[in-house]
């Protein structure tokens, strides 16, 4: 907006406004902190108790080694309940038989992996010995590409919308987050009511199209709906993360930009995105990982059908290792390790690219 006030006056006004706001901001921050500290009295007490011993520890091992103290409790629980089982899992993959205890399983070397990777033509799942493994891989690749793109995009838009000062903000935030709270069985049930032959969707649109479409019976539509339902069910999760990330951007940057008359689009690209990037990276990495591991709601909604059109890789692992009568832990473990390696490589690539944009 063109302004006829001289430049210095404008800047002085800006500065005054900022100081006023910063004073208000400080006061607001202080009162909030007082409120919070009252709220957290019991734990503050516990923390305070630990101050002296922790200072002693610091004196003994030096400031440089302190990070290990902070990281240790987490690593301990990880080590016991995640790393050890992963090793056991790996051991399952190089042994055979159906016994639960590793000690009783005969060693078979790479046999499970050979079975898994035995294909005449890697591009045609049906030519492979374990055709459903490869089908699962291809289906998952397709699913992940579209679902991550869609989900992150929609989550970003929603987070931006929910960050604005709108009345009833708490209600709207709850609304978008609600589907995340539902169990996969319930999600699938609700969407079945919508998508079945006599469901809600057909009730609305069958007049226009003329007949009732069997949405979950045609392979193309089944995949589309599986991606949509999965996005619907998990979007709130990423929206919330991005919302937290948006809080770390100081509000006065936006004020300044607005006073300069910057367009909203430029504000978004030049201020929001760069400062949001560390959180955005979290969302992208997590979305990719969780998307590859999608199982529950797809399994309950379509069971992998029609045929194997929506059978994802974790369904294959689950069926091989648990749902069959002869639980083939070895093959399931081998498949999970192959999956894990692929996923790790993808994630590292993602983080490397992401780190180019700033500290990671």
């Amino acid at each position, binding site marked *: 907006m063109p302004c006829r006030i001289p430049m210095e006056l404008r800047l002085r006004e800006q500065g005054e406004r900022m100081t006023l706001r910063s004073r208000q901001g400080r006061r607001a921050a202080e009162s909030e902190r007082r409120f919070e500290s009252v709220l957290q009295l019991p734990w503050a007490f516990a923390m305070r108790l630990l*101050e002296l011993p922790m200072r002693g520890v610091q004196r003994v091992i030096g400031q440089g080694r302190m990070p290990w103290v902070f990281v240790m409790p987490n690593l301990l629980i990880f080590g016991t309940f995640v790393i*050890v089982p992963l090793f*056991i*899992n790996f051991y399952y993959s190089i042994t055979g038989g159906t016994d639960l205890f590793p000690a009783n399983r005969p060693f078979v070397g790479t046999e499970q992996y050979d079975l898994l990777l035995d294909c005449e033509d890697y591009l045609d799942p049906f030519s492979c010995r374990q055709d459903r493994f490869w089908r699962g891989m291809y289906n998952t690749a397709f699913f992940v590409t579209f679902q991550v793109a869609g989900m992150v995009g929609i989550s970003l838009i929603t987070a931006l919308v929910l960050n604005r000062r709108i009345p009833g903000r708490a209600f709207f935030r709850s609304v978008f987050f609600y589907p995340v709270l539902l169990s996969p069985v319930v999600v699938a049930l*609700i969407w079945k009511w919508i998508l079945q032959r006599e469901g809600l969707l057909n009730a609305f649109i069958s007049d226009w199209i003329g007949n009732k479409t069997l949405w979950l019976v045609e392979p193309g539509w089944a995949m589309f709906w599986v991606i949509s339902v999965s996005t619907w069910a998990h979007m709130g999760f990423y929206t919330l993360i991005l919302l937290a990330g948006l809080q770390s951007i100081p509000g006065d940057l936006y004020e300044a930009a607005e006073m300069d008359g910057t367009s909203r689009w430029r504000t978004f690209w030049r201020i929001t995105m760069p400062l949001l990037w560390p959180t955005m990276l979290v969302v992208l990495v997590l979305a990719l990982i969780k998307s590859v591991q999608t199982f529950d709601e797809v399994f309950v909604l379509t069971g992998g059908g029609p045929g194997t059109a929506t059978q994802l890789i974790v369904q294959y692992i689950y069926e091989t290792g648990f749902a069959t009568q002869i639980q083939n832990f070895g093959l399931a473990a081998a498949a999970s390790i192959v999956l894990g390696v692929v996923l790790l490589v993808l994630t590292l690539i993602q983080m490397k690219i992401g780190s180019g944009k700033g500290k990671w």
Partner: protein
Amino acid sequence: MFDRTLTFLTRRRGGKRWHITDILTWGYLLLGVLMMFGPVLWLVMSSFKTQAGLVEFPPTFLPYSQQEVAVEGYDKPLPLFEVKMPDGSAKVMAQVRRIGIVSQMVDPENPGPPIKVRFQDRTPVRELSFAWENYITPLEQFNFLRYLWNSVVVTTVATFITLIINSMAAFGLSKYEFRGRTSILVFIIGTLMIPISVIMVPVYLVVTKFGMVNSLWGVILPGAATPTGVFLLRQYMLTIPDELLDAARMDNASEWQIYWRIIVPLALPALAVLAIFSIMWRWNDFLWPLVILTRNELYTLQVGLNAFQGELQVQWHYVLAMTVVTLLPITFVFAFLQKFITTGIASTGMK
């Protein structure tokens, strides 16, 4: 002059104009309520339907059931139908019995001898009715308070542990440069690669070795160190300016004091998010407690109330009712916690 009028007309409180983004915002919000909340409301309404009502095509939004009325001369209440009479009019009649495709009906007001009506000439008369027994029967059958207590214990203790150790680890990994930092980070993210349903059996073996089977600790501990939590908090802590820490160190604060006096309050939005997630994961956790807990005194809500999923049949009317029951507490918790997401770095107070 024209554009000043336009400015006047489209001004908002605070003196700003309605931007196209504001209109889009409200449109998006309304769409969101419809698509996200609509199904949830439908779920709640459906939890009041009878078994027959749940199977019906097409599914209705509100719970209906066929109206029944007591008719003089008959012991049991008779179902009401709207019948197409031979002369074309419609009359409400009560059905005495149905034999094949012919049903015998009487006028509920003055019951005379039954007249024969064809099967296809009648449609049921329905009324709104809430099947409260969907809620009452399971709650009577099961030790609901016990399950609730177990769920609350698991959720609060686990969330508390998760918040503390994850924020400690995130602090260590974000604000320090030390050897092994990258490998630990890759390690932690790497553990996300294998889905939990796959390593459930090995984790079970480890938990058995520790003797934690059939104890709430077996449910609390294995998932306390979440890689998602560490990753999320770490990325958020990266945005906290290092100058704050340096200033504190110059004031002779120990690392521990820096952690809990500076970092934790500043990371409140991310901590609130992690708290919400942790509460949600623990409250809804079904698979893991199902394997670990075999004694029903220890069952959490999800395990206990999902006993209605049988082999040949799922008693949906009970499952839905119990789902709504388990959703209520977490709704309140979420509404309470989400406001912490906007506290924290208010504005320039930190400078």
